[in-house]
């Protein structure tokens, strides 16, 4: 199976081709084909994982093209890292695709949605299997394209169209940096194959500041895709897309691509001078983790809260990779993919029911939608790192590694943990506790997403009757919840941390266990929950008074630290000034010269125009006459 692993991405690709061309005529209007493609790919991925667990390994390479003396080789790699990712992407994407059948029901472009979904799955699996920067870059662009298509899926809404553009352009900035980085590598190493590059670096053929530069440029791509500071601005806006898209792209797969890139090219960072590049990775991750968590506190849109939480968690992964916690970071990526997909899908289930994204319009849903509530709760507990849920193990491993490397980074992470519990507690109590506050569940609509609107439109007069989502949506939730609850044990030290033994980077020692640190981080997480309870459940400290006393901070957070505005200002205002200056220069200096030249030419032309016969015969004759004369003159000399 490992030798033919390249078939895995082709399954969704085949589904894409079938669905995009003949979708309406296929079973389930294309959805079933799409599901079949990804489920088969998931099964194959699991089979590959099984093989790799048994020690299999493959890195075949094929010559694609010979350009002069240069050789372009392509290939794919199956090792523990990619096998784990294959299995994760396959399983999560399958569940989300199945869920989408329920969520997207009634949408006008139902078939096209599944086609795009398949294309995206192809791109992601392709990315995972890439064994060279060329494929990696192609896959990066492909996932970027798919995310554009899917975020802007409801492109009739200007916000969605703008969000799609924003996501595309912002990630392109990162991709461009990555392209420069890989060109730099190609220039110095002469190959784009990962193993070739790593070998060249290990042998000392390529190092020093240039290596650090290349590593950081590649990191730029990762930052763009994983929505790290400073290229994070697109992720919250990307929530305009349908919820399964948010779950698939912005939780489980595409955003993980950046982290995966760093993990895949880890030697690049690891071997840079005194881990310089790794330190940058760690700090970017740590700052993003805290920064995004603070933003999550003031957001009312349930999906956006989850988006900030995703950013924050991606920050943890980066942090983990940056502090030599290679296995920890990857493990967090895997567990996070499951519980964040779960959270998004559960949120989607809620949104379908209440037809709004605003948490303040919800409330009391725990009784109405028990399955959604319990699964959402499981995901939340996993996310906040409460033992023994999945997130606890992975996040704790990252914090442990951070503590060993750099106390400041640990502090950033620990604050993030507290805030995570706080904002997730806020979500739970706003959305699921208390009484239903939706002003008119009878008149849904408002800023609601297209699908819920359609959903509500179908349900007609009996709209007020909120109810649990259909089984096709809840089943994936339950399955994902099982993963969220139990997956963490794979990384548990009590059973010998099988994950770290499977996926690890040679040369990196796992830090020793530290029980105190463990307790502290649990305490911090619990403290976050308690604080959330104090504010939003027992209302010991009402949130209004908090908002008043922290007025400036609140405003700052509400405006997302003014980063969007900063970008707007820098790129628009400053740009405008530059443009105005350039315009003035152009108008007076350049145009003046041009006009002068024009005037001169015109005067000249008035005299010389009789030479222009407008016939190529004359011109050609003159050209050759000139040649003859020049040669004759030269000979006569």
């Amino acid at each position, binding site marked *: 199976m490992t030798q033919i692993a390249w078939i895995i991405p082709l399954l969704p690709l085949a589904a894409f081709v079938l669905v995009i061309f003949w979708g309406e005529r296929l079973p389930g209007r294309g959805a079933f084909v799409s599901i079949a493609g990804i489920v088969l790919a998931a099964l194959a991925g699991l089979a590959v994982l099984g093989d790799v667990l048994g020690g299999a390994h493959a890195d075949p390479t094929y010559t694609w093209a010979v350009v002069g003396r240069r050789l372009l080789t392509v290939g794919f790699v199956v090792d523990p890292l990619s096998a784990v990712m294959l299995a994760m992407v396959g399983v999560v994407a399958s569940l989300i695709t199945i869920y989408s059948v329920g969520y997207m029901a009634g949408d006008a472009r139902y078939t096209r949605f599944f086609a795009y979904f398949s294309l995206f799955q192809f791109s992601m699996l392709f990315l995972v299997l890439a064994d060279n920067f060329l494929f990696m870059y192609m896959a990066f662009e492909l996932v970027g394209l798919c995310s554009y298509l899917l975020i802007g899926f409801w492109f009739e809404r200007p916000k969605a169209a703008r969000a799609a553009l924003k996501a595309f352009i912002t990630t392109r900035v990162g991709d461009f940096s990555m392209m420069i980085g890989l060109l730099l590598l190609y220039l110095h190493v002469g190959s784009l194959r990962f193993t070739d590059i790593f070998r060249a670096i290990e042998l000392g053929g390529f190092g020093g500041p240039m290596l650090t530069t290349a590593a950081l440029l590649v990191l730029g791509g990762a930052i763009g895709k994983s929505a790290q500071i400073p290229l994070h601005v697109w992720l919250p806006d990307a929530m305009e897309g349908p919820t399964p898209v948010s779950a698939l792209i912005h939780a489980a797969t595409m955003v993980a691509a950046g982290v995966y890139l760093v993990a895949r090219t880890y030697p690049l960072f690891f071997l840079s001078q005194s881990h310089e590049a790794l330190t940058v990775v760690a700090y970017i991750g740590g700052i993003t983790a805290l920064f995004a968590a603070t933003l999550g506190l003031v957001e009312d849109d349930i999906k956006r809260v989850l988006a900030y939480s995703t950013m924050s968690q991606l920050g943890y992964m980066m942090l983990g990779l940056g502090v030599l916690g290679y296995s920890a970071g990857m493990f967090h990526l895997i567990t996070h993919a499951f519980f964040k997909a779960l959270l998004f899908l559960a949120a989607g289930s809620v949104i379908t029911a209440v037809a709004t994204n605003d948490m303040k319009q919800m409330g009391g849903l725990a009784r109405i939608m028990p399955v959604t509530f319990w699964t959402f709760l499981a995901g939340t507990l996993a996310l906040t790192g409460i033992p023994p849920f999945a997130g606890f193990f992975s996040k704790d491993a990252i914090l442990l590694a951070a503590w060993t490397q750099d106390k400041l980074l640990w502090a950033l992470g620990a604050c993030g943990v507290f805030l995570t519990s706080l904002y997730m507690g806020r979500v739970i109590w706003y959305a699921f506790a208390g009484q239903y506050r939706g002003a008119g569940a009878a008149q849904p609509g408002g800023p609601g997403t297209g699908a819920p609107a359609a959903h509500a439109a179908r349900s007609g007069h009996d709209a007020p009757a909120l109810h649990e989502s259909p089984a096709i949506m809840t089943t994936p939730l339950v399955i994902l919840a099982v993963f969220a609850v139990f997956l963490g044990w794979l990384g548990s030290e009590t059973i010998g941390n099988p994950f770290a033994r499977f996926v690890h980077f040679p040369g990196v020692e796992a830090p020793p266990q530290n029980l105190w640190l463990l307790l502290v981080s649990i305490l911090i997480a619990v403290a976050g929950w308690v604080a959330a309870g104090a504010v939003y459940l027992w209302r010991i400290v009402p949130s209004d008074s908090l908002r008043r006393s922290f007025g400036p901070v609140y405003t700052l957070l509400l405006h997302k630290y003014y980063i969007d505005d900063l970008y707007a200002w820098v790129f628009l205002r400053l740009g405008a000034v530059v443009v105005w200056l350039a315009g003035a220069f152009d108008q007076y200096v350049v145009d003046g010269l041009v006009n002068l030249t024009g005037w001169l030419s015109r005067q000249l032309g008035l005299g010389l125009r009789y030479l222009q016969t407008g016939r190529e015969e004359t011109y050609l004759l003159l050209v050759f006459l000139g040649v*003859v004369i020049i040669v004759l003159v030269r000979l006569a000399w």
Partner: protein
Amino acid sequence: MSGEALAFWVLAVITLGSGVVVVTSHNIVHSAVALVPAFLGVTGLYVLLNAEFVAVIQVLIYAGAITVLILFVIMLTEGGTGLRVPQRNEQGAVGAAVALAMAALLSTVALRATWGIGTRTLVYTPGDIGQSFLGPNLLVFEGTSIVLLVSLIGAIIIARKED
């Protein structure tokens, strides 16, 4: 006179003779038809130069396609209706002088220069040419195919009737 020399002179006479007809005939159709022996003469020269593949392509493209295209366009436009219209513009004399001078110049250069002479004579197979095209000359090959595609599209766009 060796066989090669005989062949060369015969081909030279055919090529240049038809070339003269091409450039001097007042009947455009005669010019176009005279292109065929001119091209076939050049084909013969290629055969003498051991370039069989180029020779066959020359027949296929020049004699088989371009000439037909030219004849086709002549007949689609005015055909022989222009028999009484002068076919040469007013720069005939100067043109002849310049052309003669160019021929003399190039011939002088060719006669005076000494060229490095390669030793081996090889048989070039189509396989060699294919290998060369897809190997060291890949970029040129791809570039040419793009030009071909673009001109194909361009020719269709230009020539089709507005509707």
